[in-house]
Structures are given as C-alpha cells and as structure tokens.
C-alpha cells in the first residue's frame, strides 16, 4: 500500500486543472450571492459559454475570440437571471433552473444546426485551444530535488486561464474588502434597504454583481471547452456548477476559502480518474461508479454540517421590495 501515491504529482497536476472551472464558477457565485442573488444557474452559464467559446474558436480559429464569445453568451444568461430576479423580483431558484435547461437545450440545438455533428463542435486544433504556458526555467529547475518537479509540473505548464483563475482569488478578496464597490456589494446582500436609503441603486449594484458572475462563469466555460478539453460535447459541465455552489457554501462565501474548497473538489475529481492509484494506496478496488459519485456524496456530507454553521448573506434569495 502506498498512501503517498494518492498525492502523486500527476494527480495534483490534474487537481489544479480540474479545480480551475470549479474555482471560477465558485467565485462567480460568490459575487452574485454576496449581492443577495442566489444562482443555481452557474451550471447552465458555464455550459452555454463552453459551447459558444468552442464554436467561435472552431469557426474563427482564434481561442481568444472564443473566450470573448463564451463570456458574452454567459453574460446574456446572467442578463435573463437579472431580469427575472432583480427587475421582476421572481423566484431566483426557479430562474436558475430555467437557465440550466435553456442552456442544456439551446447548446445542442444550435450545435446541431451549425455543425451537424450530433450536438458537438468540431475538435479544436492549434490556435483554437489554450496551450499550456511553460513558466521560465521550468525545464532547468526540474533537476532541483523536490521543489523542482513541483515547479515544473504542478506550477508551470497550465493554460493561461488557470493562472487567471488563481489570480482571481486575491483579486476578488481585494475588490470585496478593500474597495467602495465591495463595501456596497456586501451591504446589498445583507440589507438592501440600507443601500437604498443611503442613496445607492440596489438594482444597479445587483446587476453589476450578476454581470461579474456571468463573466467568470464565461471564463470557466471557455476553459472547459478550450483548455481542459478540445471542443464542446453535450452536457459537458456534468454538474460542475452545482459542485461549485457546494464549494461556495463550504467556503462560507469567502474568496480564499473558495480556493481551498474547490481544490478539494478538484482533487476528488482527479483521483476518481485514477482507480489504479486508489487501488494501490488502499489495497482494494473501488467501484468506478462510487468514484463518479464521490464528489456529489462529499458535497452532501459537507452540506450536512461538517461546515459548521454556514450563514449565507442575510438578504440572499429575497427579492428587494420596498416595504409598505
């Protein structure tokens, strides 16, 4: 038995890659929910972005255009969510469900119309994908014991969006806790009436938050289709939006904790891909279906209370209506 094999560099490497879309989606949810808008439509937005980024990248040959298209598509869905839950004060959960289905249906419908490949995009090649970035001295450092391989394999060699996601963590923290915008955003999720009577537009703030959420989901989806994989396939998000949501609760709506939570879920996904390592480490075979279900089971276990008491933003989920 070899427990250390569970932390094999290749497993950790894919942990980082698999955690990236979760992290981006988790931060997306953080902006939205900190502003008081619950969003179970992260999944749909990611999926929508994944399709449009892959489609545009395939047609134009430029992954950057693809990224922009993905962000735009995701933000369009954010607009619908904002319209329903901010402007028309509808049920945020139901709106999220609708957005998930809308994305699931439209992506296949449009993919079929555009590419006739059974609801997928053509495989992306060359400039249609985000290529790994080799950090300076990665090869040279490889020979340094311990730190060298970590630098060369774990830290270097990811696509740019991985680094964007990692930088988004301190970025989010700074924006939230060090700027006027952050103060107002947090306030509107706690007590929108306080923001309103202080002369700041509740609707405006919430739309901005939902917009940022859409942008980050867009990057997450683009990464899925153009970084992690080479093209779009039907339902390729596979519940990642919901896992990101669980990570958000686990992180108690805090940016740094979101990083740790999504790395944990990313690790679970990574290890599930390597039954051989698990068997080697534990000495018995684990059913593949159990491994598939593991992130979802863990989410439930975490939600069941190993997070301690997670207190969501107080005005979360409630549309803002001036009291009568």
């Amino acid at each position, binding site marked *: 038995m070899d427990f250390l094999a569970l932390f094999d560099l290749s497993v950790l490497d894919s942990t980082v890659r698999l955690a990236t879309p979760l992290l981006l989606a988790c931060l997306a949810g953080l902006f939205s929910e900190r502003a008081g808008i619950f969003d179970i439509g992260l999944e749909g937005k990611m999926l929508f972005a994944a399709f449009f980024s892959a489609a545009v990248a395939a047609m134009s040959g430029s992954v950057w255009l693809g990224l922009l298209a993905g962000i735009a598509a995701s933000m369009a869905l954010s607009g619908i969510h904002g319209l329903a839950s901010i402007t028309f004060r509808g*049920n945020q959960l139901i709106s999220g469900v609708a957005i998930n289905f809308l994305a699931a249906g439209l992506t296949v419908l449009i993919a079929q119309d555009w590419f006739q490949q059974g609801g997928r995009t053509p495989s992306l090649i060359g400039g249609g994908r985000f290529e790994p970035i080799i950090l300076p001295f990665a090869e040279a450092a490889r020979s340094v014991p311990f730190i060298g391989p970590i630098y060369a394999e774990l830290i270097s060699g990811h696509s740019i969006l991985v680094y964007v996601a990692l930088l988004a963590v301190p970025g989010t923290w700074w924006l939230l806790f060090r700027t006027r915008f952050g103060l107002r955003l947090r306030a509107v999720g706690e007590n929108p009436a306080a923001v309103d009577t202080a002369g700041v537009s509740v609707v405006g703030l919430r739309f901005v938050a939902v917009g940022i959420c859409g942008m980050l989901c867009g990057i997450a989806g683009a990464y899925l289709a153009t970084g992690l994989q080479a093209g779009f396939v039907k339902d390729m998000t596979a519940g990642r939006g919901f896992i990101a949501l669980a990570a958000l609760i686990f992180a108690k709506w805090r940016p740094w904790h979101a990083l740790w939570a999504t790395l944990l879920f990313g690790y679970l996904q990574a290890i599930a891909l390597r039954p051989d390592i698990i068997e080697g480490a534990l000495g018995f075979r684990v059913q593949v279906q159990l491994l598939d279900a593991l992130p979802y089971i863990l989410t439930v276990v975490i939600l069941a209370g190993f997070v301690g008491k997670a207190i969501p933003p107080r005005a979360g989920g409630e549309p803002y209506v001036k009291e009568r």
Partner: protein
Amino acid sequence: MDVMPKWAEVILVPLISLILAAILSALVILAIGEDPVAAVNLMVTGALGSSYGWGYTLYYATNFMFTGLAVSVAFHAGLFNIGGEGQAMLGGLGVALVLLFIPWPHWTVALLAAALGAAVFGALWAAIPAYLQAKRGSHIVITTIMFNFIAAAVLNYMLVNQLRPQGAMDPATARFPEAVHLPNLHEVLAPIGINFSKAAPANVSLLIAIVACVLVWLLIWRTPLGLEIRSYGKSGRAAKYAGIGAVRITMVAMLISGALAGMMAINNVMGEAERLVLNAVEGAGFIGIAVALMGRSHPFGVFLAAILFGFLYQGGAELALWTSIPRELIVVIQALVILFTGALDNMVRMPLERMFLAARTARTSKSVEPAE
C-alpha cells in the same frame, strides 16, 4: 390587497406566460432555419392526429402527472424538490426488484406491489435530503440535485454489476415475466368498443395517475394534513405557533413527493419497457418542475399541463424524426415555460394588475383605504 380577480390569476397569467414561451419557441425554430407553422402542424398530427399519437402523448403525460404532482406537493410545503429525476430512477429500481424476484400470479397484484415498491424507493431517496433539510438545514435544492447524480451512479452500478443478465451487453435488467404485463389502452378500451392503437405505450397506469391527481387534491385541500402542509409552506413561523412541526411536515411532504415521483416507474418501467434500462426516466423528473409551475401546483392544473407536455414530448419526437430539429427543442420549450410561468411571473402579472386596477378605479372611484 388582491388586485386581480381569481380567474385572471388562475387562467390568464399562466395562459399569457405560455403564449410568450410559445412565441419564443417559434423564434428559436425560425432561427435554426425551420418553419414554425409546419413544425406545429407536424407536432399536432404526430401527437394528436391518430390514436397511436395519442397513445404516446398520454404515455408521456402519465409520467409527467406523477412527477408534476411530486413537485407540487413539495411546493405546497415551501420546498423545491429538484430531485424528481433521481427519485424516479430509484422508483424504477424498486419496480424492477419487486417484479424480478417475486413471482406474481396476475398483473393486478403485481401492479399494486410494484407501485408500492416504486413509492417506497422514491420516498426513501427523497427522505435523506428531507432529513438533512429538516434536521441540519442543508439546502434541499442542492442536496436533491446531488442525489440525482448519486442516483444515476447507483442505477449504473445496479444495472452493470448486479442486475444485468449474464452474457447481456447492454446495462439493463432481464425482461419482466409475461404475467406482469400491464394492459395498454388498446386492451383497456377494446371491451367498451373503442379501437385504440395496439402499438402505443399508454397503459392502465394513466388511470392510476388520474387517481393520484384526485388523491393529492383531497390531501392538499380537504384534509387537516393538507392545511398543515400549506401553512408550513406559507409561513414557517405561523406553523410553529400553531404547533405544526417543521421536521414532521418537511419529512411528510418530501416522502409523499418522492413516492409520487417514484411511482412514475409503473408507467415507464413496468408498463412500457417491461425491464429497467439505464435512461428510463428521460428527464421526466425535471419536466415535473415545468408541469407543476404551469399547473400552479394544483392537481387539475398539473393534469392539464402534463397532457400539454405529453403533446410537446411526442410532437418533439416526431419533429426529430421528420425534420432536422433535434429533440432538445423540447428542453428549450420546457426551459421557457419554467422561465415565464415561474421566474418571470411578475413580468406578466404587473401589467395585468395595473390594467385591472385601472379598470376598477374607473368603475368605482370610491373605496379609499388608508395605509402606512
């Protein structure tokens, strides 16, 4: 203050939402280069133009009645059960186990036992998220979503590793014995002189679904338990004041909800496939959400909405067969219905309320009430 008369609330609002969803769907069809009018024609002919079409429409509608009722009961208790899909999968497992391992003399007893098995399995699958919500405050929306994924893994394991007959390639159980074959609508209607399509899958489960509609109506509006469920759904604090236990209502409502979703399996697993296959539920659990929203969580509304979605489903299948429009169009329509009847409800309601208010002020310029 109520501004709108009840009929507007119950009929006009959902109707307008539905029309909006239909218009957008038509635009989607246009956008992918097809003719919406031709598409509708094809759907109507395919789904309603023959007893074969009707047989499929009603078959799908039966599924949706069960899942729609499931979502509705939970809605009344203020709970959003997105887990109908997983609960229906587990219901299928219950049906398969009951029918494969116990020799039944006649389909009637088998149906009762299978319905019970389906209900118990569905209810158990809903019980865990319900318990976690009631006792630990875990958000039931997320836990039921997770349980859908877990259910898929469980079903996969059972079919691939346990229930698959030796030598069979596809992940499915063996066929159920001939004795438990459920009469389809052809066999049900033949004695009263109606000639219904033999090939269509609609079967006696439809009658059970209709009975379920009636029973749910009685439960919600004619029993003390129903009042308790609705009270809890409207105001947790008021329910507490009245001595209506939150844990009890959450559990009871979700058990009933899960049981109803699970019972769908008597239709699709026992009635149609006559064995359990991997993708037996086909998204019917999710369509239950749209059906419940459209039907305003009222069993009669659910009945009508289920038939409408049965039509859409069968019509969509016809479209996929004869045109290049994929079946996912139905998912889009379903999304639009949820969006308009659920989330964008106020977009329709607000202008209507303003209209009714204007009409009322015009009629009676008195009735002035003070307010703070």
